[in-house]
């Protein structure tokens, strides 16, 4: 579904991502792991067109989207829930969700989608008319995910959905990710919580200093203390 070929991303002279080739197949959850500063955010931001790809190419559903503007990529059914959630402060939960549905013209379908995700995240229904800033971190993350889903994407990329959240809340978010996979959504999940992410992912890529250092089945990485230690520094607790 998603095909990266030799993708590099640069900020001026700094190369944040170097020649990354990777794929995500329909229906999969793929984990993108790696330490802080590895280039994970740069990579997903460039895929969705927020920052330019400096070389290489990105394909979505067999179509080249390397230089496609972000608005058009989202309209093709690929979106990103950005790192740090970035809900619209000062706007209500309802308004945040309405903005998420901007690509949809069929009102009845929008209502249906809204109902689906208010069902999935009941707290958003409870807080529907409150401003987004009054929500807790976990609630904001749910809002950010629901907002992305309002565009009815076929593939969702999540950038560190667990960032700064308490373990109990992280668990809830991960349960929702599994629920979304069961509904048929394809996902690429960026995480620093490697162990937990590998528990629900099908496959994993590990990025270090902008380069891919591992690719394979999630179970292969999770079951090898040697690999976990080498790439993520978390093998032996």
């Amino acid at each position, binding site marked *: 579904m998603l095909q990266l070929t030799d993708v590099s991303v640069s900020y001026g002279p700094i190369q944040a991502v170097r020649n990354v080739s990777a794929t995500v197949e329909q229906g999969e959850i793929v984990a993108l792991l790696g330490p802080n500063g590895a280039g994970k955010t740069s990579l997903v931001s460039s895929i969705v067109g927020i920052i330019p790809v400096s070389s290489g190419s990105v394909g979505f559903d067999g179509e080249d989207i390397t230089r496609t503007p972000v608005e058009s990529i989202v309209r093709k059914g690929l979106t990103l829930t950005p790192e740090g959630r970035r809900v619209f402060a000062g706007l209500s939960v309802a308004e945040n969700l309405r903005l998420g549905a901007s*690509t949809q013209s069929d009102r009845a379908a929008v209502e249906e989608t809204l109902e689906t995700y208010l069902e999935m995240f009941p707290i958003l229904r409870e807080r529907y008319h409150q401003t987004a800033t009054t929500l807790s971190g976990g609630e904001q993350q749910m809002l950010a995910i629901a907002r992305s889903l309002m565009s009815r994407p076929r593939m969702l990329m999540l950038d560190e959905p667990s960032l700064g959240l308490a373990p109990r809340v992280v668990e809830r978010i991960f349960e929702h990710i599994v629920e979304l996979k069961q509904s048929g959504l394809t996902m690429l999940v960026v995480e620093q919580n490697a162990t937990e992410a590998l528990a629900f992912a099908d496959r994993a890529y590990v990025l270090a200093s902008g380069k891919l250092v591992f690719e394979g089945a999630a179970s292969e990485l999770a079951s090898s203390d040697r690999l976990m230690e080498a790439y993520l520094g978390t093998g032996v607790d």
Partner: protein
Amino acid sequence: MEYFVQQTINALSVGGEYALLALGLAIVFSIMNLVNFAHGELITLGGYAMLFSAAWFVSDPIYLLPICVLAATGAAILFERVAFRPVRNAPETTGLLTAFGVSIVVQNALLIFVATRPKPVPIPDWMQGTIQIAGLHLPMVQVLETSCTVVAATGLILLLTKTNLGLAMRAAAKDFTVVRLMGIKADRVILGAFAVSGFLAGLAAVFILARRGAVDPMMGFSPVLKAFVACVLGGFGSLLGAAVGGLSLGMLEVLLQATLPSEVAGFRDAIVFLLVGAVLIWRPTGLLGKRVELGDKE
């Protein structure tokens, strides 16, 4: 009593005019981080559109009023398309220099191709007269301007809260990247902001011209300066701040005009700026501005 009401409506009309101008400046700034110093030229171009229309095809001056508003709106859209869009992703200073460039180009084009001296613009007679309300004689321009400001402000609030474009504009003021991530076209939001700012400038221009009765190439300078000061006073980036700043600035001017002894009345603007400076020492981020740490997005 009559004097008091007259001065109040005068203060409201001047304050309203500054509020319209400041809102236009603020709406573009909040979305693009661009202080559009060419905002004053929208007023100038609205005025020249009236001049040319009157000379060529419009006989009844009432039709000149919508022409002024349309011309200013069109000019704002044109500025965006031709000048600001190419530098949209450039550093902020580039945008600022572009705005100065647009301003200078418009002024000089008018100086070279039209005339250096002021030219009279026909204004409907009834706008120049007075209107009798509850036994009081009030200048028509001021009553109309105050009402138009109220209607425009209400319209703006409805646009921003009830329409999808308005919602997107408010969201873009917070985080433009994420607005695009919602699949909303950046061009549409920015064009919307410029169109609104041009419309508000055109509305203010109608009344500025009704007061001055003439156009000249430099006439946009004073209004844009007032709008800028109003934004700073209210808190830059906040729309409510711009409205409050504009109203306060206008009312302060009228208050000083009415109360200063004649020997110092010539220093009115200097005194106004001094007072604005004092407010900024007391509240460095303006009346309604929030303190923002360097690097914060919110």
